């Protein structure tokens, strides 16, 4: 096997290879790091590549391999972690000037889980500042690009993670999803991106954007990898009071299906007439057809409130929570800080210069809607609408096991295209946002390639803790459309 072939292997194939002695961890890591070094000049998918750390860990793991130690489920697998997830001793910037030099003194729960499973963190991924954005153009460290087409954005906010997996930096990556930040870039980069049910994965160590919506989830190029990494990171954690104490199923078991007999797949009534790209519409009907062929019953569901009011509901609640979560960045204890004559100046200037424009905009909106005289009309009303959205999904899931919807209304857009009008840019999250509001799990996956050679994604939404149902349906679809491909340098437009 040529070393460059390593870059195309899935996480589970790598683990198999190590076990069989086909190659060593340092072979794989070294190849990945070289690949990263070359491609980063274009892609800018990583804020902090961890060359030294990854190298020394690979030697350590090879030694463990030689000693015949029991290997973790992600042994020796290179992983990219979004830069809003803390890794002990590594800088965690959140894509912001505010945390440009902040070294976290502790690791997130998911990072501890990955390390226990033997994974090798090879870099911290680029992202929109504080996860606010849909293009990774709002990163203080420059935009990340789409490996399928360098003139286009990889989506966001977890654009760096999605691009890394698509570009073969690593078979798997972690992102975070508050309103679509995993699923939209996964769709744009043609990889799998799963946002788990709210509360399935501990948020301990995830730098909060909107606490009631944030959820960490995996990117991968195969469903088996999705299941494997989900199994690892969904380990219960008492440090997050919102993390469920429910027992986790064995996710890999849901993948051994060929038939969807007795399974109900729902689709959005009237999706054909929505303002979405034709190729996406086609992908939806093809995907529904695949499910039907496999024996699923196809039902129509209606989500009028979610479609019409999801965006304003989200753009009230998320900024409100963000304005609170980001209040701690005040230049006193850590992070960006100016020299000031008095305390108030320290606050105003540190925050005024440390945050970028999109973050400031959302903090202002959030502060506005939480103000004592606006609270009832804005924040409280949005929470009530959120309850209506939950009810609407509950009704839909009384008819279907899984819903198939677009992941995004458009194919990957050009760089700079959506920067000027925030309201327009927010539309990119139309189909992903209601899922966060209702706390549901959803997977974005590549359904086809467009005529122009860009990935076309669809979204599979499950009921609360229905990750298994999603995997089941997705596995049938994967058997037809094949796993995600890598966009290595040569394949690129």
């Amino acid at each position: 096997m040529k070393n460059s072939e390593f870059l195309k292997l899935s996480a589970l194939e790598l683990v198999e290879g190590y076990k069989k002695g086909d190659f060593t961890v340092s072979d794989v890591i070294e190849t990945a790091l070289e690949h990263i070094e070359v491609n980063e000049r274009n892609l800018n998918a990583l804020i902090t590549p961890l060359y030294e750390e990854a190298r020394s860990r690979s030697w350590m793991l090879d030694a463990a391999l030689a000693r015949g130690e029991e290997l973790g489920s992600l042994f020796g697998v290179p992983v990219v972690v979004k830069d809003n997830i803390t890794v002990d001793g590594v800088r965690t910037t959140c894509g912001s000037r505010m945390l440009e030099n902040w070294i976290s003194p502790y690791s997130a729960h998911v990072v501890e889980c990955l390390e226990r499973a033997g994974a090798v963190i090879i870099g911290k991924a680029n992202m929109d500042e504080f996860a606010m954005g849909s293009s990774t153009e709002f990163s203080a460290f420059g935009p990340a690009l789409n490996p399928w087409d360098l003139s286009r954005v990889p989506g966001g906010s977890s654009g760096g993670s999605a691009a890394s997996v698509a570009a073969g930096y690593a078979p798997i990556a972690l992102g975070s999803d508050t309103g679509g930040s995993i699923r939209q870039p996964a769709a744009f980069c043609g990889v799998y991106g799963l946002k788990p049910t709210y509360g399935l994965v501990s948020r301990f160590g995830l730098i909060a954007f909107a606490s009631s919506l944030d959820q960490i989830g995996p990117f991968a190029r195969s469903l088996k990898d999705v299941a494997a990494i989900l199994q690892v990171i969904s380990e219960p954690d008492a440090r997050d009071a919102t993390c469920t104490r429910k027992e986790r199923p064995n996710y890999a078991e849901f993948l051994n299906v060929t038939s969807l007999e007795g399974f109900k797949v729902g689709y959005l009534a009237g999706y054909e007439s929505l303002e979405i790209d034709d190729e996406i519409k086609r992908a939806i009907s093809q995907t529904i057809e695949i499910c039907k062929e496999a024996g699923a019953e196809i039902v129509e569901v209606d989500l009028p409130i979610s479609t019409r009011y999801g965006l304003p509901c989200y753009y009230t609640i998320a900024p409100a929570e963000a304005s609170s979560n980001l209040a701690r960045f005040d230049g006193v204890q850590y992070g960006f800080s100016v020299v000031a004559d008095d305390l108030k100046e320290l606050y105003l200037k540190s925050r005024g210069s440390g945050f970028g424009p999109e973050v400031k905009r959302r903090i202002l909106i959030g502060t506005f809607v939480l103000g004592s005289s606006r609270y009832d009309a804005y924040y409280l009303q949005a929470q009530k609408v959120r309850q209506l959205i939950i009810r609407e999904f509950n009704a839909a899931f009384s008819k279907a096991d899984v819903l198939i919807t677009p992941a995004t209304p458009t194919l990957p857009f050009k760089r700079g295209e959506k920067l000027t009008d925030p309201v327009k840019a927010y539309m990119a999250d139309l189909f992903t946002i209601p899922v966060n509001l209702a706390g549901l799990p959803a997977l974005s996956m590549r359904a086809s390639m467009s005529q122009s050679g860009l990935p076309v994604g669809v979204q599979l939404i499950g009921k609360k803790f229905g990750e298994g149902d999603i995997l089941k349906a997705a596995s049938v679809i994967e058997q037809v459309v094949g796993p995600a491909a890598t966009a290595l340098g040569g394949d690129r437009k």
Partner: protein
Amino acid sequence: MSEFIPVIGLEIHVQLSTKSKMFCSCSTDYIGARPNSHVCPICLGLPGSLPVINERAIMYAVRMALAMRCKVNTHTVFHRKHYFYPDLPKAYQISQYDLPLAVDGHLEVNDDGKAHKIRIQRLHLEEDAGKLVHAAIGGRLMGADYSLVDYNRSGVPLMEIVTQPDITSPKQAREFVSRLRQLVRYLGVSDGDMESGSLRVDANISIMEPGGKWGEKVEVKNMNSLKALERALEYEYERQKEVKSKGETIVRETRHWDDDSGKTISSRSKEEAEDYRYFPDPDLPPLVVDERTIVQLCKELPELPWEVRDRFISDYGLSLEEAEVLTERRDVALLMDDLVKRGSPVKVASNWIRTEIMRVLNERAISAEELTIPPDEMALLLSRVDRGELSTTAAKEVFAMMLEKSLNVDDAIKALGLSTGKLTGSDLEAIVVKVLAENAEVVEEIRAGKDKKGKKVKFLQGIVMRETKGQADPKEVQSLIMSKI
């Protein structure tokens, strides 16, 4: 101007004596620790950290709520209260807002012998802030070029108790806080120490005009003792009356008590209320304290101070004053019960506890359980005093010896060279005769009628008592002296 009546409401913050902090596992034992050493990502508010609530803090707050007959809410919510200040690492405090842990209770105070009910509006849980040290003379904020921040206190559990404006005098306010402090100590939920800041009192005071109209309320802060609280409120009451008498209006504001000058000083006008942007903390699901837990905690409540006091009056026949002193501290009240149970007569036990024992406890700053004399030995000593086998004077010496050398009663008596028998009759008469002979000139003076105040007889009595090593009845000694002279 006595027609102006003060209207006072209190807001009291009590640090709960849990081992770890409210939302993290850092130690609460920060007094004297080096700055920023009792901290972790959670109480420092580092990015990515999340709070998890301390079970004991909930239990303690519920215990206190039940003792004040509050209604405990089974479902309550934690809110975030936002403001920027360096002692608040997340720039918000996790607190409770419109769904507090408990509401609608009361606590009774004794005002000049009359019981007076103060209603409790609410009781809730929150986290303490860090501490600022200001770089100016006396550690004041004013004039400081910079300030230093220590987060050791950040996240210590606080219970906030808010009263209705039912308090009608500064003295009553003091009495209330003193009751509340007694209660937290009885319940073991806090040390209630005002000087070290584990119990902090803010007061709202306004004056009611003759027509029943309420004036603007003024918030008074920075009272670090019960005495300071009473003084500050007295000062503020007088000040407000004076403002009124000049025909001026009282400004709604926050004023700081300055103990040195004995004045309250305006800190800034509260013309616009701060916008704290409260909203439910999405990191913390609703707190559920089920009925079973509440009933269980209710059952586990110790006998409350006023219950013990009333029992001491009815069962032991003590006066209200005696009972108040004996039940001020729970350890002392328990000792009282213990001694009586072990056969000590009530009167003697009450007298001894209120004098000798309390003196020793206070001098050594120890609790009754830490007293080196076992209760059964203490009871034995008191029984002998009661039976007249030891005079009070002798018993005090025995008590001191027992305390110092950790001896039992008999060994202490032996060590002091006392016999357990009582000196009386002819034995005592012999000593009296001897003493009178040795002090003939004093005897002469008495006989000459020069002892109008009886001091000289007392002098002779003292010598006889000393000779008998306190084992005689002082009354018998006195009558023997008088009969011999």
